[in-house]
């Protein structure tokens, strides 16, 4: 049996289904992230684990114990909030020691544990400060220390880095992961930031509209998305409308140009599909022998720091292929309106169900 298990969990708010058929089995010490856009049910699921919401259906077990209807203060679960939620009337040390005080631990033991945690979160000299005397990053470290102080069975983090600026976010992200590894605590992390989820997690649960879209390692999620939503939500993606020529040999056409896909797919000849293709898979030029090639006109060239993003339109009203080139001084960039050939390997793209319209996926990307 896994350490943290959610079995067929559902949550309704009136007629609205916030979470449905949620199944997860996390092992002890595993770092699992819930990733998805706003309103996908990730925070609701986290709150059900914490006990702040009760599932309409299903069970939640921690270390074999059914905690589905247990009060939040009776579960041994630590939580870090987006807004830190430090008690403003208490010093940093009192905040960290609060959970231990509630558990009536001896004062000496509390003092020792607080000092230990202040060391872990790199704030050894801040114990006597009040939360308002700390920066946002420091406050969130205190919140983390507070959630860890009483040695919870599971650590829950609800978008803990969202309120911080980019640099601190990245630094703190690494610290959280290092501390989690050091303590070996089972952790559930909620975020809408794919970079955070991919860089931190052992496994990622991608969610959309209350459903689990895919569960897998960051590598699996990025490279082998199982649905159009996952493919579009995680990373940048070209979703090109294709028409099946011969499914058995992987043949199809994109904007009238023939391509061959190595990964098998199903579909009748003449049927519509979506071809998912990461920008980094696409190169400018004809590429090596056996590559798929598409010809179009350059519609945009934009600098994104280390990379240059080039958009190539396939025909007047055809789809656009986005590709990334490393930004180096010797890079020769095409001119706007220039006719170019782009290429990609046969095992690069994924063929997805054509039901996911390109527009809606683009909307999802924009939302994310």
């Amino acid at each position, binding site marked *: 049996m896994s350490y943290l298990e959610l079995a067929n969990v559902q949550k309704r708010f009136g007629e609205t289904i916030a979470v449905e058929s949620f199944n997860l089995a996390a092992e002890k010490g595993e770092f699992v992230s819930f990733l998805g856009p706003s309103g996908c049910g990730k925070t609701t699921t986290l709150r059900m684990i914490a006990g702040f919401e009760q599932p309409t259906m299903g069970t939640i077990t921690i270390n074999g114990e059914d905690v589905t209807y247990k009060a939040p203060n*009776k579960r041994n679960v630590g*939580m870090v909030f987006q*807004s830190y*939620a430090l008690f*403003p*009337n208490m010093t940093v040390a009192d905040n960290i020691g*609060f959970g231990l005080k*509630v558990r009536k631990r001896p004062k000496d033991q509390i003092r020792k544990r607080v000092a230990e945690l202040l060391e872990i979160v790199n704030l050894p000299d801040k114990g006597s400060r009040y939360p*308002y005397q700390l920066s946002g990053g420091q406050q969130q470290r205190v919140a983390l220390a507070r959630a860890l102080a009483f040695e919870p069975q599971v650590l*829950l983090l609800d978008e803990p880095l969202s309120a911080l600026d980019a640099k601190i976010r990245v630094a703190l992200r690494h610290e959280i992961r290092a501390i989690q590894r050091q303590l070996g605590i089972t952790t559930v992390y909620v975020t809408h930031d794919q970079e955070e989820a991919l860089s931190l997690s052992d496994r990622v649960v991608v969610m959309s509209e209350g459903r689990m879209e895919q569960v897998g390692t960051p590598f699996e999620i990025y490279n082998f998305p199982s649905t159009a939503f996952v493919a579009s939500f995680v990373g940048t993606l070209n979703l090109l409308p294709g028409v099946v020529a011969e499914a058995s040999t992987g043949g199809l056409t994109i904007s009238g140009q023939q391509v061959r896909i190595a990964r098998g797919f199903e579909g009748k000849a003449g049927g519509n599909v979506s071809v998912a293709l990461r920008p980094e898979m696409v190169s400018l030029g004809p590429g090596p022998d056996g590559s798929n090639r598409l010809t179009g006109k350059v519609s945009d060239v934009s600098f994104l720091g280390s990379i240059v993003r080039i958009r190539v339109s396939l025909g007047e009203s055809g789809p656009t292929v986005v590709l990334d080139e490393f930004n180096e001084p010797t890079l020769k960039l095409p001119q706007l309106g220039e006719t170019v050939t782009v290429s990609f390997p046969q095992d690069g793209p994924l063929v997805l169900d054509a039901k996911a319209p390109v527009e809606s996926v683009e909307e999802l990307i924009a939302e994310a």
Partner: protein
Amino acid sequence: MTGPSLGPRAPGALESIQSSARPRPRGGVGAGRIGSWIIFLVGVIYFFLPLVATLAFSLRLQPFGQAYRNVLNDDPAFASSLIYSLFIGIVTIVISTLLIVPTAYWVRLRLPRVRPYVEFVTLLPFVIPPVILVFALLRAYSGGPLPLTVTDQGLNVLVVAAYVILSFPYMYRAIDSGLRAIDIRTLTEAAQSMGAGWGRILWAVILPNVRVALISGAFLTLAIVIGEYTIASFLVRPAFGPYLSLLGHDRAFEPAAVSIISFGLTWLAMGIIALLGRSSRQSVQVAGAR
């Protein structure tokens, strides 16, 4: 700090904004300042003239300060009525706090839809005059299963109950605004996740963070209880309000002296609020990004 977004501007709009930021001609500034000073002085005179007049009148009895000596040294009813009212006031504050803090907290946390009704109930003392309230209390508790008006203790209970009702608008509003200033939901959940029960959450997390609001409400309540006349008089309580009224019937200078003393006590209370407020950490950010 970033200013508000101005949106698309019409030609010349920038110039007009810039020109409005230029210093105005000296005459305009001078006239504006004089106007402000006049309004300020009129306000000061309006508020302080009666006070100064009362003080001057209270000092007319010769020798100098005799009215104060008469009240403070020679009239035991002054101290006893003041102590009684203070005691009743403190009991009222304790009961109001016990009643209103959990109510306002729970309404904010779990029953936000009930808030307008609770607010309406707390505003009733402004709608129902004290004389109606005290008559209702006398009618209800003069006999029947709870004849509170027949003993002194019973009357004390009634007067406290009436004052708790009178304190509703001040206590509820003060505490509610204190709760609004903190993210009680997240703080509650944070405390719960660490194992705290409702009692500890209220005592260790919520109450300290609405301390200043609570003190403000408490002092307002105290001020009302000390000066209250109607309820105390109809319930025949030896309170400060009826004492002050009685004093005014047969003395000339002493009521003015007592008024000045009660002003002094009120100002002292306000000073304590200001001091506590200044040392409070409540004005600082409670949660969220810095």
